[in-house]
């Protein structure tokens, strides 16, 4: 098993004829993602990487059958409309790749998704990947790298940084520890699926025995994961690594969410809350595979 996506998930790509859309359609197809169609308004009838292009999500659904997931690559200013279109067509999982989506646009997407019982990952996400099954977005860049870097196994990864999603997953795989699903939740202050929501999915996934989380300063996601553990709703071992120790108040490290606002969301509070809850907080990336090996060995004995 894995979470959110596997080789059977039926996927469409909105913005398939753009620069990133085309390049990453190839990645997804070659990796094994079941891409059934693409959408670019006004470009219906074309083909990209052997994938038929439609004028609308509704048309893609009519002509290809049910659509489980839409991966969105349109420019930031058009994300709101594209996402609302997919939600209106009853797509239940969206992946919003673009960076710089205005916050009120995200809030409106969130409100609509809630009404529709749908979920979205991002914005500002590299996407997610279930090793050997499917990739959504652009993790790995090219299919052959993604195959080489990420092995299948028992560890779920959730990260607020795209690069760290890949690097944590790579260093684990290199140590012979495979992955169930790796998720880049996105770097923005308001995102569709945050760490605690990913942890809840890992909790229900029998394949996932252990979770790794990369957190950052700003927002309350890591504190809420600590709450989940303390209330008994997340019971698997968790390794947490928090970036931004060097950050000073007012320094924004690229991610709009990475800010220190009045003490809440600071590096110290996150580390303290996670430790209190019993998570394994490490200080260096090299400690992640070490700690994972140790925890998995204990889990097997028990």
């Amino acid at each position, binding site marked *: 098993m894995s979470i959110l996506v596997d080789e059977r998930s039926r996927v469409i790509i909105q913005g398939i004829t753009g620069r990133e859309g085309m390049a990453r359609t190839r990645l997804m197809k070659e990796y094994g993602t079941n891409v059934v169609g693409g959408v670019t308004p006004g470009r219906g009838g074309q083909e990209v990487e052997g994938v038929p292009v439609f004028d609308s999500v509704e048309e893609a659904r009519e002509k290809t059958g049910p659509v489980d997931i839409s991966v969105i690559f349109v420019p930031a200013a058009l994300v709101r409309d594209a996402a609302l279109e997919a939600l209106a067509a009853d797509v239940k999982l969206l992946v919003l790749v673009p960076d710089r989506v205005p916050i009120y646009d995200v809030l409106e997407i969130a409100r609509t998704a809630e009404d529709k019982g749908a979920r979205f990952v991002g914005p500002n996400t590299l996407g997610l990947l279930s090793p050997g099954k499917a990739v959504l977005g652009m*993790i790995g860049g090219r299919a052959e790298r993604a195959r080489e870097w990420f092995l299948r196994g028992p560890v779920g990864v959730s*990260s607020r940084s*795209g*690069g760290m999603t890949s690097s944590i997953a790579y260093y684990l795989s290199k140590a012979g520890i495979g992955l169930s699903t790796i998720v880049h939740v996105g770097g923005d202050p308001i995102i569709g699926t945050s760490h605690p929501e990913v942890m809840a999915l890992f909790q229900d996934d029998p394949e996932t025995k252990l979770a790794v989380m990369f957190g950052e300063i700003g927002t*309350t996601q890591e504190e809420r994961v600590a709450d989940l553990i303390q209330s008994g709703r997340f019971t698997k071992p968790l390794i947490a690594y928090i970036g931004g120790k*060097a950050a000073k108040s007012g320094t924004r490290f690229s991610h709009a969410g*990475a800010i220190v606002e009045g003490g809440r969301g600071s590096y110290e509070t996150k580390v303290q809350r996670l430790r209190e809850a019993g998570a394994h907080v490490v200080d260096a*990336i090299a400690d992640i595979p070490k700690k994972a090996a140790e925890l998995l060995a204990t889990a097997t004995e028990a």
Partner: protein
Amino acid sequence: MAKLYEYQSKKLLHDAGIRIPQGGLAGTPEEARELAEALGKPVVLKIQTWVTGRAALGGIQFAETPEEAEEKARGLLGLKVKAYVIDRILVEEKLAIRAEYFAGLVMDDARKVPLLVFSSTGGSGVEEIARHSPDKIVTIPIDVRTGLREFETRDLAHKAGLTGPIQLQVADVLVRLYKAARTVEARSAEVNPLVLAEDGNIYAADCHLVVDDYAVHRHPELGIEIAREFDRPPTVLEKIAYKVEEKDHRGTFYFLEMAENRAESGPVEGAGADADEILIGFHGAGGGGSMMSMDAVQAKGFKTANYCDTSGNPPASKVYRAAKIILSQPGLRGYFASGSGVASQEQYNSARGLVKAFIEEGLEIPAVIRLGGNCEEEAIRILAAYLKRIPGRVEGYGRDDLPEFCAGRMEELIRESGGARHAVGNIPPPAPPEGCYGFDTLTGRVSFNHDRCRKCVSKACVGACTPGILKVENDLPVLAVSPEDARRGKCTECLACEIQCRFHERAAIFIELPIPGLEAYRKSL
């Protein structure tokens, strides 16, 4: 987070129909007196800055007479707050206060909604109140599709303990506050205090709005210079860097001078071997990887002169400009580039950008470049092949070399470098001959010295061109697409042709990538 000054925020509230104290902005003591005279009553003078806690800094003063206002203004203008000199003060009527409330808007990341926050106790102690008696604070989630409705804010005011006409007045102000914030797409808003005056009216006595960075382009009326969070006005170099990013949305580029480092460490002359004094030019890639890498550099006791991040698959030209801007900071002892280590972007673009910048600069300090990820082998090969002859030693690393190890290499190389410091020179890139063949790109120009090209047998530039937009015609390299297409982005500014030609052929290609303002800035140092 683009912060607005108090006077800007208040203007927006006023436009939304909320009462604000009468007054105006003064840039000189005389203007302050004139404003006080016109008001004809006691005034308050408030420094205009983004730093919070102005009262504690002595930045808020009261004056009974116009003369006193002038005198107090003289003390406030020119006041230094966090290395920033106060040049504007707000002069307003002093309100006769009956009660102080707090009203604000914040984003609730757990529920994914904006949250309106109100407290019937406001003023300077509101944070304390929030901590010790959270029950005094009432909130309401807002549905962005319907907006905030009056019955909701009436209910909120009621829950906060307000009764009678005050309840209705406050409810009305709260609806207008959300409208004002929503109109400019504010990420947060704070009115503290919201004042019930003796005249029975509600006034916003202070206000701070923070506009969403990503929406700033939809609000040119706000005149925001840099759509990014600072608690001080941007430096000249930061403004130069922002212009680069503003015009080129391929990948992202963020640059911040860590000014507190400069202020704390003072002049670096005669610093000796003390590691505290060693300044590093920092070039990260991706938010999380950059933070991890910066932590590793600082753990070695180095100071980072700046923070910089180029990621999201930036073209080589953007990485080049970032490097040139980083190297416009004098006194650097080393250059450290590192991201997450397993990037999805094609890393050879970053490598080529660094090669062009380091060669132009004649880099004399050591550089450790960790370009792990997609196509890292090619990236490391490019660094090794083309940066052998510059004075500074450059080492390239990949995904299997961790940031801590690379920071260790930085330490070692700086020790070996014998104290070399980066001097910001102004070496202009070699210029192409007048009127030679060339074409414009999205952000620059590619020129060919065809006299030299005639002597070139390989025409290696054509093969090196990643997007394949060059061809050989009459034994000369020329564009294979229309100049219009090249300018609109068919030329990806990958810099491969220039590097190929410079190192393997006749150095006949010149790629100009202007950075407006940088030359003048360097001269001013």
